[in-house]
């Protein structure tokens, strides 16, 4: 069975969509709900990917008794690991989830470091400091070879290697979508809880929140930690999905600027907005790349630049003409709201979609 190119297109689109949803939800928690301009989102994402690239492979190699230097003989070692994993699926999955856990812990730890400036600085100074943090991870990853193989990158072992080739990506996609759904529910629950209202209070009027006895410093630290942990899980999943990690792929544009763009298109502080914004962005980019070759004849330049141009212009238009995004921020439904249940089915559907 060979998959049609359209099917491959949709499967890949959904997988990238799921990964970006996880990262964007975490950014929305930080920027949308709490107002922390994390211009260094790539720090946590990259950390997650680096964990996935450096830790599980070494564990597997130790368990399977494969000799050799993990970085220099990476290709050979990882292909041996993948063969070994075919017979040891259970261990493979156990280590996979352990890696996600380690990624979350490392991400959370980096979150604590990130929160050091975030509770002392505000506005542009904070944004620039976080940007500097985010930049540094790529430089370190690019040059410190034992981590992720420097400029050559490393392969990531594939816990799904027991599946036949044409089933591997569809199954991975289903798994990613499930994980993204769990993260979505988690973050919806979170922002609908009293904690969610506290986050907005800290964002909109920190002094007022503190006068009511809320500890805004603590809440900022916590939210940065949670968000960084989620982003790190997203990064680790991406590394597992594409089956490799290379440091220069973790740049400012892909993992900081695109997430900002997606949540701004969809609407800040609205998780449904995150879904729709991510879907629009991922689809648009995929379509441009998919039809790149057929565009080549019509435009006298590399069509890749069209997507930079288009996305930049779209973002500027959104910021200028619809700064609230597609879905606007809604007051969270409280207990009192649950009693005035809508009568008609249409109204119910409307509420489900837009409230």
């Amino acid at each position, binding site marked *: 069975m060979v998959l049609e190119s359209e099917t491959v297109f949709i499967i890949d689109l959904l997988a990238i969509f799921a990964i970006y949803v996880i990262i964007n939800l975490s950014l929305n928690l930080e*920027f949308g709900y709490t*107002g922390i*301009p994390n*211009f260094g989102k790539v720090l946590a994402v990259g950390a997650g990917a680096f964990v996935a690239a450096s830790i599980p492979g070494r564990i597997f190699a130790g368990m399977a008794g494969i000799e050799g230097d993990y970085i220099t003989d990476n290709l050979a070692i990882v292909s041996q690991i993948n063969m070994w994993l075919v017979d040891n699926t259970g261990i493979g999955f156990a280590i996979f989830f352990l890696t996600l856990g380690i990624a979350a812990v490392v991400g959370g730890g980096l979150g604590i470091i990130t929160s*050091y*400036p975030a509770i*002392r*600085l505000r*506005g*542009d*100074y904070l*944004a*620039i*400091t976080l*940007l*500097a*943090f985010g*930049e*540094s991870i790529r*430089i*370190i990853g*690019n*040059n410190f070879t034992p981590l992720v193989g420097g400029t050559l990158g490393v392969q990531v072992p594939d816990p799904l290697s027991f599946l036949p080739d044409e089933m591997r990506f569809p199954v991975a996609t289903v798994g990613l979508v499930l994980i993204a759904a769990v993260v979505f529910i988690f973050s919806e629950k979170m922002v609908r809880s009293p904690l969610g209202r506290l986050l907005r209070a800290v964002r909109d009027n920190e002094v007022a929140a503190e006068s009511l006895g809320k500890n805004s410093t603590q809440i900022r630290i916590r939210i940065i930690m949670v968000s960084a942990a989620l982003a790190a899980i997203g990064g680790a999943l991406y590394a597992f999905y594409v089956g490799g990690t290379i440091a220069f792929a973790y740049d*400012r*544009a892909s993992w900081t*600027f695109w997430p*900002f*763009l997606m949540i*701004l298109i969809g609407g800040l502080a609205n998780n449904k907005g995150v879904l729709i914004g991510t879907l629009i962005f991922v689809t648009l980019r995929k379509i441009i790349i998919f039809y790149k070759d057929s565009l080549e004849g019509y435009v*006298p*330049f*590399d069509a890749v*630049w*069209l997507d*930079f*141009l288009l*996305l*930049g*212009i779209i*973002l*500027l238009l959104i*910021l*200028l003409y619809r*700064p609230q995004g597609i879905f606007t921020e809604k007051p969270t439904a409280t207990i009192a709201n649950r009693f005035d249940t809508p009568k008609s089915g249409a109204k119910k559907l409307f509420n489900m979609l837009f409230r």
Partner: protein
Amino acid sequence: MVDPIFSDAIVFASLLALLSIGLTLTYLTTRVPNFAHASFATIGVYIALVATRIWEVSPYFSLPIAFVISGLVAVALYTFILKPLIRRRASQAIQMIATLAFDLVVIAMLNIFADFVVKTFQVTSREFTLRSYDAELAGLPMIVFVAPLTIALLALTLFVVLKKTKFGIAMRAATENSDLSETVGINVKMVYGVSWMLGGGLAGIAGALMSLWFQGDPNLGPLLIPSVFAASIVGGFMSIYGAIAGGVLIGLTEVLGTRFLAGEFGSWLIAYRPLIPLVFIVVTLMLAPRGIAGLKWSRLWRHGSRV
């Protein structure tokens, strides 16, 4: 013969100073760190390329054109994007994202232009250098003298303009308190526009000069922007002289500091050079957020005086 590392340090420090003067000029007016600033310099690089390789004139003739075109692009960013956002009281973070988006558009245009130049004129437009088109002076390329001279001239001109002319006084008033200056009849929007023109234009000049020493590429901006931010932040972000000092400090540290440390600890350190501006940014913002210009120098010199 002078060690080429010193020429490298002089040129890089001067260009960073030039870029961070421009960034500071725009930051003074709108209080938004402009992520597209380094790409304005890339526009200058390409104007120098066109002048040298297509029109076949000396690269120095491209300086005024680079000033005008980069300046106009900066004014467009201010007028069509930042001004409406400020009018709607968008947050600083949103304004920064808007400059990032603008940067993206500029980079895309530069890449498209680079492809166009290759296809139409068969001229290398990526990873090119115009070093061989530079004149020579006392056995050194002219840029080594021109770059610091530009800074000196500019510092003098800006000093005279800001302190002695009516426009300069209006500009200082408008950046200090825009509402109050409007009440005394200063056209604040116009003054801000001129600041953006100057800021972008200076970046354009820096870019045109840069093409004579460093490799030109459409994606130069994002690589350069951390150093420019570091220079401006170390300089205090609000002072033009601070910006010059910051530019020189960061430029010299990046080039000479890396060389020195690599000599001490081994050449593997050279690859970590991009970390230097990041460290400067973080340390400055955490310890002395007002930078060099905010330090109380008089306290260091005169004991007992109240500052």
